[in-house]
């Protein structure tokens, strides 16, 4: 009897659990769905307006072709290989300039943060270089390197260097003295102090600088290609505008936007990866 009763209770319990859990899961799923909907509601609204405005002739469809037309053109450009051609050329320039820039900026920034005397002397020059608008210097690069690839890569390198370098300098300079003192009291000196304490401590700062550099390098490549190039996304956007191929132009811009978002996403991941050890102050 008692065993029977017990099994009865168990059954009730089981059915209750299943019911509650599934309904909870259902609720959670709908909440999740609502959240996603809420998150992308505005984007969907923008796309709908983009589609409807020209279709209802509220805006000249020459200036803003319907979204679907842009998508069709986008697919066409991809299948014809035109998109990949310009995309790969731009990306190759950006990657080349970006990595050379980081390769110069990171060690130099660490070095300058470490040797304060050197930094004091060079700082005014750095500030002047950083403040001068990158694009304004492009003509100088054209004069020195000609209109080939070199000038474009060099201007990207120039645009990439400053944010990363300055953030590396401040990352090293603003290292918590307590960390350095405790490392020293444990007998850590010289190179070990630099590689085990100071550089890891500067990483969050440096990554923030790298993100700025990446955004800037994308901007610079677009402008450089618009000013003087025969291929690349910036060139094709401007070329298509001049030839009134408006839907194709929007398709190229969409590609560029997606590239920017992807780069930002990847750098976000990198940042999270590299600052895993860091305690978070703000929880959100």
């Amino acid at each position, binding site marked *: 009897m008692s065993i029977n009763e017990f099994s009865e209770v168990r059954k009730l319990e089981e059915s209750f659990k299943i019911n509650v859990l599934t309904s909870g899961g259902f609720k959670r799923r709908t909440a999740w769905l609502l959240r996603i909907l809420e998150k992308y509601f505005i984007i969907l609204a923008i796309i709908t307006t983009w589609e409807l405005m020209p279709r209802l002739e509220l805006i000249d469809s020459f200036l803003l072709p319907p979204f679907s037309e842009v998508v069709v053109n986008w697919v066409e450009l991809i299948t014809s290989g035109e998109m990949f051609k310009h995309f790969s050329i731009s990306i190759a320039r950006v990657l080349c300039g970006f990595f050379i820039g980081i390769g110069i900026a990171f060690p130099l920034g660490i070095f300058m943060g470490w040797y304060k005397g050197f930094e004091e002397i060079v700082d*005014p020059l750095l500030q002047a270089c950083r403040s001068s608008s990158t694009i304004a210097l492009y003509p100088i690069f054209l004069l020195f390197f000609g209109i080939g690839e070199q000038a474009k890569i060099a201007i990207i390198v120039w645009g990439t260097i400053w944010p990363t370098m300055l953030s590396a300098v401040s990352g090293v300079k603003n290292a918590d003295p307590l960390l350095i003192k405790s490392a020293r009291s444990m007998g850590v000196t010289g190179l070990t102090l630099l590689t085990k304490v100071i550089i890891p401590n500067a990483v969050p700062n440096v990554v923030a600088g790298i993100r700025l550099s990446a955004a800037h390098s994308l901007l610079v490549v677009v402008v450089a290609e618009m000013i003087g190039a025969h291929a690349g996304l910036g060139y094709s*956007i401007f070329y298509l505008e001049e030839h009134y191929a*408006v839907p194709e132009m929007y398709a190229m811009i969409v590609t560029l936007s997606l590239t920017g978002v992807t780069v930002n996403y990847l750098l976000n991941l990198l940042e999270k990866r590299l600052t895993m050890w860091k305690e978070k102050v703000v929880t959100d």
Partner: protein
Amino acid sequence: MSSIKIVDLGEKSWRIFKQTLAIILVLVLWQVVPSLGWVDHRTLPPLTDVIQGFFELVVSGKLFIYALASFKRAISGFLLAILVGIPLGFLMGWYKRVERMFDPVVQLFRNTATLALYPVFLLVFGLGELSKIGIIFWGCLWPLIINTIDGVRHIDPILIKSARSMSVSALSMFTKVILPASIPSIVTGLRLSATHSIVVLVSAEILGSDSGLGFLIFEAVNAYDAPAMFSGIIILSVLGLSINYAIVHFEKRLLFWKPTAEN
């Protein structure tokens, strides 16, 4: 007393010397390298030639007209962005739901290279002032919005809770707590967008304009007038530096109440 002063003076001049050493060195190199013929004159004219070209531009009045044209564009776009961006940022920072809804859009637009949209602005607004002011406005808008949101979201909760426990009205909550506490972040946004506005301005003027410093630079390149080109670049750099300096000064004025970590 006087000996202390002398030491002070010596230290001060030593510091100034150290700060200007690198720049002086660059200027000297700039003069010497082309003069000795190590670099082609047409690529890098000696500093004195550039200074001469600069004065010629000043005397002819061309520089002033172009600088004014550029300045007007930059300021109009920048002020418009402030008027739109900062209130929007407050709205999105305070109402989590609004922020959640708009965040994907903000991320999308922020990560789109500003100048990629310049042809669109040209199509819609034509070649006149409006397209330039529009693209500068657009470029300045996103850093301002993002930094204002950041400032509002990272206000110390204790401040808000204590204000609430003293039952302040919504208005004074905003003017006495939220606004002052988010100013450092907003000023960062101002600095970012001011620098960005100059980059955008120059690019827009190079790509489609008949006045302004960007146009001056590119016109000089096409006319193989290197001194004029360098003059334009120097003016732009000085403009960038002084705007940055002015904003930093402004920040200090606004944040006089805030204790700093420096000793």
